């Protein structure tokens, strides 16, 4: 049941990959995330070269986000105006990110930066999510009243030029913060192979204070554009996209995502966030651990020989 992947140049068990795609798809449907942060480390663990894993699973993110955006569009829960501004930033960020990744590979520091980004971003986001959702669960159990949320936006959002109206999100703010946020997610998408939803969603909710109903749909729209750009750039510049690998992952992924989305209604939002926060934190710690544990071999091959 093994299949030889033409670009990764390794032989893998394909039913295992379908299962992996389905599992990550289920998780992504359940939590409304892309699932890239989970997929890339597992692929690397299975022996796929990291550069190929990061580049190939981006198209898995494209597929699951596309089906997500379609269903959110039918619920009128996508703000294409602010999503477009963020996507423009995302494309720019992806361009910069792919070049940065090339440069880091040349320096032999790509795996260090990847490990560090996972530790830093996933660790921080996971901790915040866990803290916030556990607090909410505890308050519910004790029967306390949820404290009134402060809906004020940071003042600097109003001081910046280029103000635009985003009626669907209920915003009249400068275009610079969403653009910058999109660009940041674009860089992460190129380096970590993730969609960046785990950064975008909290930032859109708590910094931009967008209407909560449009946040997930809009972030998925931005993620499609950014990861599509990343995939094309990785294929064009680095030739690291394995279409066979991504197709196998897709097949399981889209089915899993649909079932995940159906299951998500059975749980409370804060319980889902607590579980997701835990997963995010664990992946971050696992990826970051290699920075602190003595490696079994002090020497390692650096990818990217000048051919």
């Amino acid at each position: 049941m093994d299949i030889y992947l033409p670009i990764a140049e390794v032989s893998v068990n394909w039913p295992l990959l379908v299962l992996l795609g389905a599992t990550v798809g289920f998780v992504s449907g359940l939590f409304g995330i892309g699932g890239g942060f989970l997929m890339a480390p597992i692929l690397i663990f299975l022996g796929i070269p990291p550069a190929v894993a990061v580049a190939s699973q981006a198209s898995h993110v494209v597929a699951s986000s596309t089906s997500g955006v379609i269903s959110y569009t039918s619920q009128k829960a996508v703000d294409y105006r602010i999503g477009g501004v963020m996507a423009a930033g995302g494309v720019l960020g992806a361009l910069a990110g792919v070049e940065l990744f090339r440069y880091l590979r040349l320096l032999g520091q790509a795996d260090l930066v990847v490990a560090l980004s996972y530790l830093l971003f996933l660790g921080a986001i996971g901790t915040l999510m866990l803290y916030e959702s556990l607090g909410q669960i505890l308050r519910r159990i004790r029967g306390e009243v949820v404290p009134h949320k402060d809906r004020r936006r940071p003042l600097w959002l109003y001081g910046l030029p280029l103000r635009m109206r985003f009626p669907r999100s209920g915003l009249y703010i400068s275009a610079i913060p969403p653009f910058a946020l999109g660009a940041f997610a674009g860089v992460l998408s190129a380096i970590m192979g993730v969609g960046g939803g785990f950064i975008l969603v909290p930032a859109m909710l708590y910094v931009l204070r967008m209407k909560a109903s449009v946040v997930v749909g809009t972030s998925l729209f931005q993620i499609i554009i950014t990861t599509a750009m990343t995939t094309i750039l990785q294929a064009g510049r680095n030739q690291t996209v394995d279409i066979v690998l991504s197709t196998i992952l897709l097949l399981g992924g889209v089915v899993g995502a649909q079932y995940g989305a159906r299951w998500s209604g059975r749980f409370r939002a804060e319980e889902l966030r607590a579980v997701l926060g835990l997963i995010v934190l664990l992946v971050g710690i696992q990826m970051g651990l290699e920075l602190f544990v003595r490696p079994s071999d002090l020497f390692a091959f650096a990818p990217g020989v000048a051919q």
Partner: protein
Amino acid sequence: MIAALPPPPPAVEAPAPERSAGTTRQVRVAAAMTDARIRVDSSFSGASIVLYGAVFNPTDAPTDVVVVVRGPDAPVRLVKKTRNMGVWLNSRPVLFEGAPGFYLTASTRPLGDIADFGQLRRLGVGVDHLRINAPQESRTVTRYGVRDVVVSRLGEDYLDWRRAVIRLREAAALYDTDSDGVEFVDKGLFRAVIDLPAVAPTGQYSAEVWLFQDGEPVSVSNLTLTVEKVGFERDIFEFAHNRPWTYGVLCVLLAAFTGLVASRVFRRD
């Protein structure tokens, strides 16, 4: 024992021997492979080739057979992890050349018993005698009045680096030393099984079959082996490398289309 000695740069490169050379001598070897072309397709998970041959030995002195299979040259970049303030960081990468992408020796006895160090070094037989070096790190200096002494910027660690290249490739089953891999099935008839892992690089391989007598190479037979991607695998690989941008756009369209189809199929009515 051998590895502990510093590798002196080879003074004389072994001349590329003719196929089944040494015909003027009485003692000679002839060999062939069951398969000279390995096809890498989607079901490829490594290959196993049998190399077989015959030794013509009218003399009384015993002979040894050494099979050396060498893949295409694959330079590697190596980093060393060092601990800085509790964090393991990579050093700058060092480029090593002269390391074949695949290297296997199979012999009737351990190589060190068959021929002496100098002989093996001259012929480049055995992983310890591969001409792996880091040319970008070396420079020539005048030392103790001797001109053009080659020193490496890696300094005393140089051997550790060089050995790591071999060790890491051995761990990936790309380098192998099989000291009883050549088996005599009958008087004068031998066979050796060559296992190519799935990660073996594609390209031209060469197989040398050396015949040693009294520690001297007396005959050699040269064979070639091609490992190539075929069919669908090859089409994808060439498409991805020749038209990378079109390929990337296609990947994205395929992904978006799959997502679209999935949301249609699973739409709740």
